[in-house]
């Protein structure tokens, strides 16, 4: 019930916002903030109240929905989802605050769409029915399309439709795979979309879902769907465009949550449901046995080098996201304790850190109205606080120990080395290049003599700091005390590994 409340309160908020008159902008903003703060409060409560000692799903709601297809409204949380729910709920209000001043037109529609988006994201992470999962997955598409397309930058139309088509392309393949799973889950009438049931069936010897060939194909279907979202090379080109054009808060959501939907899906569906399919792509034998790790490696190195080549601040951060998601893929491919835990941590951490980075880019853009890295210089003496926070975020992102980015990256690599020695060693190039582009950016923007154009640039203001502080604190806390997050999903990961080892 609590969970349902959390998911649908933003939807309720959307209705409420739509009913408010268009002129009362302050009211609309406050209402939106309220409707995003409530889920945050609930998420924090769930995070605290969640029983960490078990791998089972909790706060389960399971009611029939479309009986003809045995579709249920089945939601619940395990350690992984509660963590990501917290992240989603946290970024909600932060993004509302970040949008407070810089959305000039159509604030009502913006906020309404944002709330719809939040419902989609929250629902996605809580769904335990494959169909529901898919519906929530797609539910985020439309608001995102509008949020980029209407409130975005100069090439927003291109970016928005690109995002939309890419994701849709991936998700139709996922739809085919999903239907195939459904059809093979039993005799007519006994078929199900229930994820836990399907997981159990898929590991039952002799069941149609347990067939290796079937699992490979279905794995691929789901994988492409999620790969577009992650994004995994070569499905990534929508990401830089979308990021560059999207308004700040939407970039934050895009990088912070939407990318996580892809990796979450990989864990929840691809790994848990198709262990044999996963095995085929990660057993380290031959090309296919290394393919997933190879993709992770390509993502890391490719994303990092692309980031190095960028001169647009936001594009740089966008490409860095591609690189960082590569660590998630690599960690997942390792499918051992440290690999998976590292990947999940990296998901969460990347959500926090990239959110910070995009917020920071937004702060600068709001002041200077451009993002050309070479166009700045010496801001460190003009905006010390901003510089400090940016340095923190950069350092966290380039994997400095003591900050959260390190733990995920290190665990992923440690886990991956166990299986994919050469690829992991090559992936460490990403660590160096990652440091290179962040430091180079730091130098070009903040160090050196102050560009005379920006002598009057105002320092970051209180509202902006407010959006960054919680994320900064999380970055430090998780870097110092990773068990804080790992406690939540340790059992779930153990459980998952048991499933993977059972084949």
């Amino acid at each position, binding site marked *: 019930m609590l969970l349902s409340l959390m998911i649908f309160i933003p939807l309720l908020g959307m209705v409420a916002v739509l009913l408010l008159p268009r002129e009362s902008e302050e009211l609309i903003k406050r209402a939106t903030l309220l409707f995003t703060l409530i889920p945050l409060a609930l998420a924090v409560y769930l995070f605290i109240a969640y029983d960490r000692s078990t791998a089972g799903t909790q706060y389960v709601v399971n009611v029939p*929905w*479309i*009986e*003809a*297809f045995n579709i249920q409204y089945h939601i619940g949380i395990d350690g992984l989802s509660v963590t990501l729910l917290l992240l989603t709920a946290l970024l909600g209000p932060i993004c509302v605050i970040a949008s407070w001043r810089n959305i000039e037109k*159509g604030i009502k*529609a913006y906020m309404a769409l944002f709330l719809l988006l939040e419902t989609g994201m929250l629902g996605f992470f809580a769904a335990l029915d494959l169909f529901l999962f*898919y*519906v929530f997955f*797609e*539910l985020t*598409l*439309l608001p995102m*399309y*509008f949020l980029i*397309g*209407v409130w975005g930058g100069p090439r*927003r*139309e291109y970016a*928005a*439709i690109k995002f*939309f*088509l890419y994701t*849709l*392309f991936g998700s*139709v*393949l996922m*739809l*085919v795979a999903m*239907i*195939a799973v*459904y*059809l093979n889950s039993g005799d007519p009438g006994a078929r199900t979309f229930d994820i836990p049931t399907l997981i159990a069936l898929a590991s039952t010897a002799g069941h149609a879902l347990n067939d290796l060939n079937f699992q490979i194909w279905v794995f691929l279907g789901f994988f492409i769907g999620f790969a577009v979202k992650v994004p995994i090379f070569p499905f990534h080109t929508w990401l830089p465009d979308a990021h560059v054009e999207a308004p700040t808060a939407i970039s934050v959501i895009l990088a912070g949550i939407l990318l996580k939907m892809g990796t979450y899906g990989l864990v929840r569906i691809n790994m848990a449901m198709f262990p044999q399919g996963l095995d085929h792509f990660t057993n380290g034998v031959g090309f296919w046995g290394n393919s997933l790790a190879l993709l992770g490696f390509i993502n890391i190195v490719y994303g990092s080098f692309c980031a190095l080549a960028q001169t647009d601040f936001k594009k740089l951060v966008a490409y860095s996201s591609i690189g960082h998601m590569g660590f998630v893929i690599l960690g997942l491919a390792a499918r051992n304790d440290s690999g998976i835990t590292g990947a999940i941590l990296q998901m969460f951490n990347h959500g926090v850190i990239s959110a910070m980075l995009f917020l920071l880019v937004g702060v600068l853009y709001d002041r200077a109205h451009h993002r050309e890295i070479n166009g700045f210089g010496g801001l460190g003496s003009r905006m010390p606080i901003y510089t400090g926070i940016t340095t923190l975020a950069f350092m966290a992102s380039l994997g400095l120990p003591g900050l959260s980015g390190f733990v995920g990256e290190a665990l992923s690599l440690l886990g991956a080395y166990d299986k994919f020695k050469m690829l992991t060693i090559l992936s460490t190039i990403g660590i160096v290049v990652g440091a290179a582009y962040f430091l180079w950016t730091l130098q070009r923007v903040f160090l050196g003599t102050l560009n005379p154009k920006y002598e009057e640039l105002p320092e970051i203001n209180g509202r902006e700091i407010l959006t960054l502080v919680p994320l900064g604190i999380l970055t430090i806390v998780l870097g110092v005390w990773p068990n804080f997050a790992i406690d939540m999903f340790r059992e779930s990961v153990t459980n998952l590994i048991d499933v993977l080892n059972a084949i």
Partner: protein
Amino acid sequence: MQPLSNIESLLYFSPEILLVIFAAAVIILDLVVKDRESVAVAYLSLVGCLCTFAAVLFTHFSFGDEGPVSLFLGMIRLDVFSSFFKVLLLLATAATILFSLRSEELDARLKGEYYALLLAITFGMFLMASSTNLLMIFISLETVSLTSYILAGFLTHSPRSSEAAFKYITYGAVASGTMLFGLSLLFGMAGTGDLAQISGRLTELLAAGEIAPLAVLIAITFVLAGVGYKIASVPFHMWSPDVYEGAPIPITAFLSVASKSAGFALFIRFFYAGFGSTELMQAVDWPFMLAIVSALTMTVGNLAALPQQNVKRLLAYSSIAHGGYLLMGGVLLTSQGVGAILFYLVVYLFMNLGAFYVVVLIANEVGSEMVEGYRGLSSRAPLVAWAMVIFLVSLAGIPPFAGFFGKWILFTAVLEQGYYWLALVGLLNSVVSLYYYARIVKAMFFEDAGEETTNVSFSTGTFALLSVFVIPTIFIGFINIFYTFSNISVSVIPMQ
């Protein structure tokens, strides 16, 4: 159950009779009412629809337990399948009447004929949905066609409209002639006009080697030409973009929804009852033929829609593509497949009519059917713009709108039969389709209107009618009852 005699049948023929009566009444009323601007005839037609609806319910429920029944010595059949389509068609007719009321295209002087023809075409479609005899099938088809030709050319002073009518009738006449030739071959081979018997006879004769499979193939292909023309499937689709573009918008909407629905009713009944036996399918693999036609149809429809600038024409191609999706369900010979078609038709009715209604509104207010005309609509008429978004996104098949659920059960049915390639083609097509729907959305939301930024205001009635389409488009997918349509198909699918 024995077919009812002619006299006995009359009572159960009451919906059709009512339609004819009201059609006549409309003409008479039109003669009586002097005021050319009066909307009385339109409301009378609506009342006619309402009465017919009541009659449909009455006839349906009076046979609730006794199962399907044949009327007029087996000419037409009264079953849940036909009742379903009758309700659907009435909804479409009523909506078209309401559109026509709001449309400023139509010539006010010819209103009487217009509404009478609408009721007449509905009558023909009723027959299409329930015919079980070759004769009835042909007559109903021709009734619908002839009235459609007239309605398509109803804008007497518009060259586009006349051209549409000309192409429509030329095309339609050849197509239905071809079909009639096919029907004659069928009749000759089976020696009967009764669909139910044709299947059995053909099977026997094929087994006995008395007729060549080629003859059956030719007959089926010729019949397909007629049916395909009605549902606008490739390669029999070419009339539809031109006709849809030239015809008055309400008629375009009506043709794209009602005519297509009736076509599918006929198609399902004909192919399932007439050629549904396993042996026949072994001789002539018509399901596979349909699968290819279906794949071609959606692909051609979607690809050709991509560069369109006229929204009506774009929607015409879109509706061709949707015909392709629907045909997928027809390939399967399963109750799921038919159920999926029926479900999709319901969904399609709402979303497509809704989209056309917006086209009507914009044509009235902006005077343009082109995509450019939709620029900046989001700020000038946000509600209409958002409604259009919902229709288009639903047409593209994106959750949580009804269009997604429609596609979902279609694809499930297709995949269940192992037609993976077909499902994949369909799904990739729906990705392509998003692109051209998004162009309209883009014009509405991402582009500015230019200097003319006057807000467009619409009456409450407009919004009420709009919500009639919006609400089902959002919610149909969430309602369980709509997923029971596969039960309806039992009456048309032969026991195997």
